[in-house]
């Protein structure tokens, strides 16, 4: 099956053609935002990049670099402050190694907010003109990596919406693509089902280790995960326990074998199949991690409704709750009418797959039209 995308120098295929203004530290975020809003560029809301320890710093840098290398991104302007831990020149060099248009500025060198904004706009507008010459080409669908996510779940998520997305996931893998899902806390209580599908003992052990790590960390903190997960909204929607939420959540990952377990924001290999990424359950951080991993498109099921989008990838919002669709139609792209008896899970899956192809080929989702650019990077350690 063919799709229309932007072939990139590194062999990957983009389905959007963004210029990204990327602050390497939160101190540069406002300046970066003002550059982006002056032209039609997207902006990354980076709240980190300094005073971070060990793995946290690594995660921030890896996420920024892999977002810069992302196939939906055609050009990147990196904005640093100048004294931060995540070095703007290093981030720019790593992104440029993929053959991309990249430049960087540091606010301390350029001489403050106003001069950086002016200089930044001048660079970004040239990028914008340059990338506008790129054309979509017909390529194979096996170049697509789909991230699947559920958030603001209710009882309809596990019974209907996630199984419909699972159907789409299976179909994409059959056609040679990749599917990634995450949210380690939200496989707790369902990991025994997932490990049966692991391709090797090593993959199964990695998955169990990731789950154990979350449970141990919660125990170390002397708190109870159940205060946060299921969330108050989940509970109102009929979800009683974390296990119940997890058993419904894993259905969005379909039925294919689990090829590999990845670190947060780690690049997803080219091999077709299903991948798990060790992300938090928090929607935006999970979506950002999977996009940094290379997912060009996201399908996001919601029972309660959510406006969340992404600066980098289209997020198709799906609900099987008729009341939620009626209430939040401006945020939700796709309604599944299974509960009203109007279609089967398979019919809805076929329709959602077609919708996904249209979005891949350029149809805008509601979050893109409304300008949603939510962005959060996972963090695990205290600030110093």
């Amino acid at each position, binding site marked *: 099956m063919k799709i229309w995308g932007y072939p990139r120098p590194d062999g990957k295929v983009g389905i959007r053609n963004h210029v990204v203004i990327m602050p390497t530290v939160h101190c540069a975020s406002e300046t970066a935002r003002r550059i982006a809003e002056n032209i039609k560029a997207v902006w990354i809301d980076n709240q980190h990049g300094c005073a971070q320890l060990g793995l946290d710093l690594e995660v921030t840098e890896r996420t920024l670099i892999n977002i810069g290398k992302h196939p939906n991104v055609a050009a990147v302007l990196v904005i640093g402050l100048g004294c931060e831990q995540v070095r703007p020149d290093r981030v720019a060099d790593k992104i440029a190694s993929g053959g991309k248009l990249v430049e960087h500025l540091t606010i301390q060198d350029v001489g403050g907010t106003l001069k950086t904004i002016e200089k930044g706009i001048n660079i970004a507008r040239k990028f914008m003109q340059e990338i506008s010459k790129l054309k979509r080409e017909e390529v194979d669908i096996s170049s697509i990596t789909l991230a699947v996510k559920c958030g603001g779940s209710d009882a309809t998520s596990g019974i209907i919406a996630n199984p419909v997305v699972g159907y789409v996931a299976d179909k994409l893998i059959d056609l040679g693509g990749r599917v990634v899902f995450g949210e380690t806390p939200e496989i707790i209580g369902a990991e025994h089902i997932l490990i049966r599908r692991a391709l090797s003992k090593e993959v199964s052990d990695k998955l169990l280790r990731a789950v154990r790590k979350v449970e141990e960390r919660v*125990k170390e903190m002397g708190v109870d*995960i159940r205060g946060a997960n299921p969330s108050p909204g989940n509970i109102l929607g009929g979800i009683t326990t974390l296990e119940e939420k997890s058993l419904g959540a894993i259905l969005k990952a379909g039925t294919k074998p689990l090829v590999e377990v990845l670190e947060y924001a780690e690049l997803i290999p080219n091999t077709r199949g299903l991948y798990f990424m060790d992300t938090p359950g928090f929607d935006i951080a999970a979506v950002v991690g999977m996009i940094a991993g290379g997912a060009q498109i996201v399908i996001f099921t919601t029972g309660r409704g959510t406006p969340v989008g992404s600066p980098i990838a289209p997020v198709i919002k799906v609900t099987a709750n008729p009341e939620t669709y009626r209430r939040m139609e401006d945020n939700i792209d796709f309604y599944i009418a299974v509960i009203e008896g109007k279609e089967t*899970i398979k019919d809805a899956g076929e329709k959602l797959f077609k919708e996904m192809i249209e979005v891949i080929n350029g149809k805008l989702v509601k979050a893109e039209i409304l300008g949603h650019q939510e962005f959060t990077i996972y963090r695990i350690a205290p600030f110093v």
Partner: protein
Amino acid sequence: MLVSSIDPKNIALVLHVKDNVAVALTNLARGQEVIIKRDNEELRIILLDDIMFGHKFALEDIPKGGYIIKYGEVIGRATRPIRKGEHVHIHNVVGLRGRGVSEVDIK
């Protein structure tokens, strides 16, 4: 997938033959009789509570400490006896996970 389609005449759904709870597909009222299929078995349940859309009720009496089964899997344990037709939720069920491995706090 556990269900492939839903008959709009159904007001509640049992997802798996092993389940001891059903999910309401519409808002249901206390005192209402629900006739529901669990595999080939037809169950008649008089609801003891109002059950909101998406919430669960018991298909049979569940003793204190008994497992709550949905999707054919354990989703928690009863913190007190639950009667057939009763609302099954956080007031009478506790999850077993998320607080260290297999730690249970049924008093």
